[in-house]
């Protein structure tokens, strides 16, 4: 069995209510158990308010469970003394690229975490350069963040995390505010880091095409895990996905519609190539 880098066990979570408010607080996470294996690329889907961002924030101790436990590489995230060990192992990238860059120069921003961790300067230089190269932003190292596009800023944010040499990177809707080009850049970067450097990736997204590229999809609904499977199997549940306010790739939807009209079709198809193959067979045959 592969090694677990993150293990959430029976996690309950709710935000504290106003002391005046006597109604019971709304449960954001209900008994959620989820293991992330080392090297895996997992996508988490769910509509707004499904709890997907909340579970992500548990993965590096930004939020602590009200019930249950979260372990990162065996470390309990509630262990205050080891919180920085947790955060070094699991880095986090957020939605708004502007609100996570601290410094006025790209390379200084990438160095921020290393400066905080007290990494010696020579090693820091090396790690910053490596991180910038791995996201393809090395030539922009002396730029100021506000001169960059959204996709570029997001790649700098990723580099700032990668420089810590984490085991896992959690991305909370990193593409939501980007244009299609920026989205592509960011997704390509995530896949490269996962594939070439073996960094475990957890991607929270609203875009089904992005989720389709993951090894595994976890679907959250109403604070619970509704499905947890490979993308093909998840998207084949077209009706269920639509019912919980999600979508499926257009090609899957087409296969579903064809099936409805009585043609032989397979809703496990999630990529353009597979779809074209299947249709070619159908149309030529």
């Amino acid at each position: 069995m592969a090694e677990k880098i993150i293990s959430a066990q029976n996690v309950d979570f709710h935000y504290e209510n106003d002391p005046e408010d006597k109604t019971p607080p709304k449960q954001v996470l209900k008994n959620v158990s989820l293991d992330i294996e080392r090297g895996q690329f997992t996508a988490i889907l769910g509509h707004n308010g499904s709890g997907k961002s909340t579970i992500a924030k548990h993965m590096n101790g930004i939020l602590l469970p009200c019930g249950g436990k979260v372990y990162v590489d065996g470390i309990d995230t509630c262990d205050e003394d080891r919180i920085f060990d947790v955060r070094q192992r699991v880095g986090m990238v957020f939605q708004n690229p502007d609100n996570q860059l601290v410094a006025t120069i790209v390379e200084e921003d990438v160095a921020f975490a290393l400066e905080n961790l007290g990494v010696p300067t020579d090693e820091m230089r090396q790690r910053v350069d490596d991180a910038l190269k791995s996201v393809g932003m090395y030539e922009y190292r002396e730029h100021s963040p506000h001169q960059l596009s959204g996709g570029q800023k997001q790649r700098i944010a990723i580099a700032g995390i990668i420089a810590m040499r984490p085991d896992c990177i959690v991305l909370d809707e990193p593409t939501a505010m980007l244009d299609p080009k920026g989205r592509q850049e960011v997704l390509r970067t995530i896949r490269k880091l996962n594939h070439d450097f073996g960094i475990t990736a957890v991607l929270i997204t609203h875009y089904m095409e992005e989720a389709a590229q993951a090894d595994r999809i976890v679907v959250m609904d109403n604070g619970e895990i509704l499905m947890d499977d490979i993308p093909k199997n998840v998207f084949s549940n077209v009706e269920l996905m639509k019912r919980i306010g999600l979508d499926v790739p257009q090609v899957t939807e087409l296969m579903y519609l064809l099936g409805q009209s009585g043609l032989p079709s397979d809703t496990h198809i999630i990529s353009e190539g597979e779809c074209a193959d299947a249709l070619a067979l159908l149309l030529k045959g």
Partner: protein
Amino acid sequence: MPMIKTEGLTYTYSIGTPFEKTAVNNIDLEIEEGTFSGIIGHTGSGKSTLIQHLNGLIRPTSGKVFIDGEDIWSKDVKIRDIRFKVGLVFQYPEYQIFEETVYKDIAFGPKNMGLPDDEIDRRVKETAELVGLKPETLDKSPFELSGGQKRRVAIAGVMAMEPKVLILDEPTAGLDPKGRDKILGQIKEYHRQKNTTVLLVSHSMEDVAKFADKILVMNKAQVFCYEDTPEVFKRADELTGIGLSVPQITRVFLDLKKRGIDIRTDVYTTEFAKKTILEYLENKGKRGGADA
């Protein structure tokens, strides 16, 4: 007479500095009243600059803009009146909300127009209902609402001015699929009820394909084409050529064509794709039958 017309519209930023850039270049455009048009283009293709010209937020470097036949920069036109005629909803409009209650925030535009109170009241209630806000929400503070709700408050704020032209810049950015469909559906419904001319700027070909009658494609500060939606998708190959992402389903049909299957490629929605395939099979059945 077209609702919107531009003649040689050109705008250059930071003239005389090293950052000089022509954002829109010599644009001639006519948009008929009552159409629902999508505007597509890369970031930096000039679409944002173009729409800000249409309600006079930007004054062209050269060229003219006519709204409802009026040259908006002629001396006897008050630019503020143009802004009431052409409502513009910016990207992430929820960040412009400022009033204590949802009601007051939606009423801000109509109030600026100097409308009587009962007319303001009618408009606020009507648009709030249209964008799916419950009556009790109107008395709440907009800052208590969820992101999607705030977005709808902000859009209602512009709709309540009942402009003749409604322009929306990426109204669905950052929303989940359900939220996306909901807002687009409400915009379509508003369009249907009021026969407003609508311009929808979007990065999502899928969204535009589903809702717009016509599509304006911007590329490199110029109009690449402005045609009926099916016509535009007939040129899907060219669109990918200028680096725009056509819907996934369109790419599949382009692929099929390449594989030697004689099928139409102006397919952009899944429903239409299904119909196309069924028709193809039916025709093939007939042909096959004739051959035998």
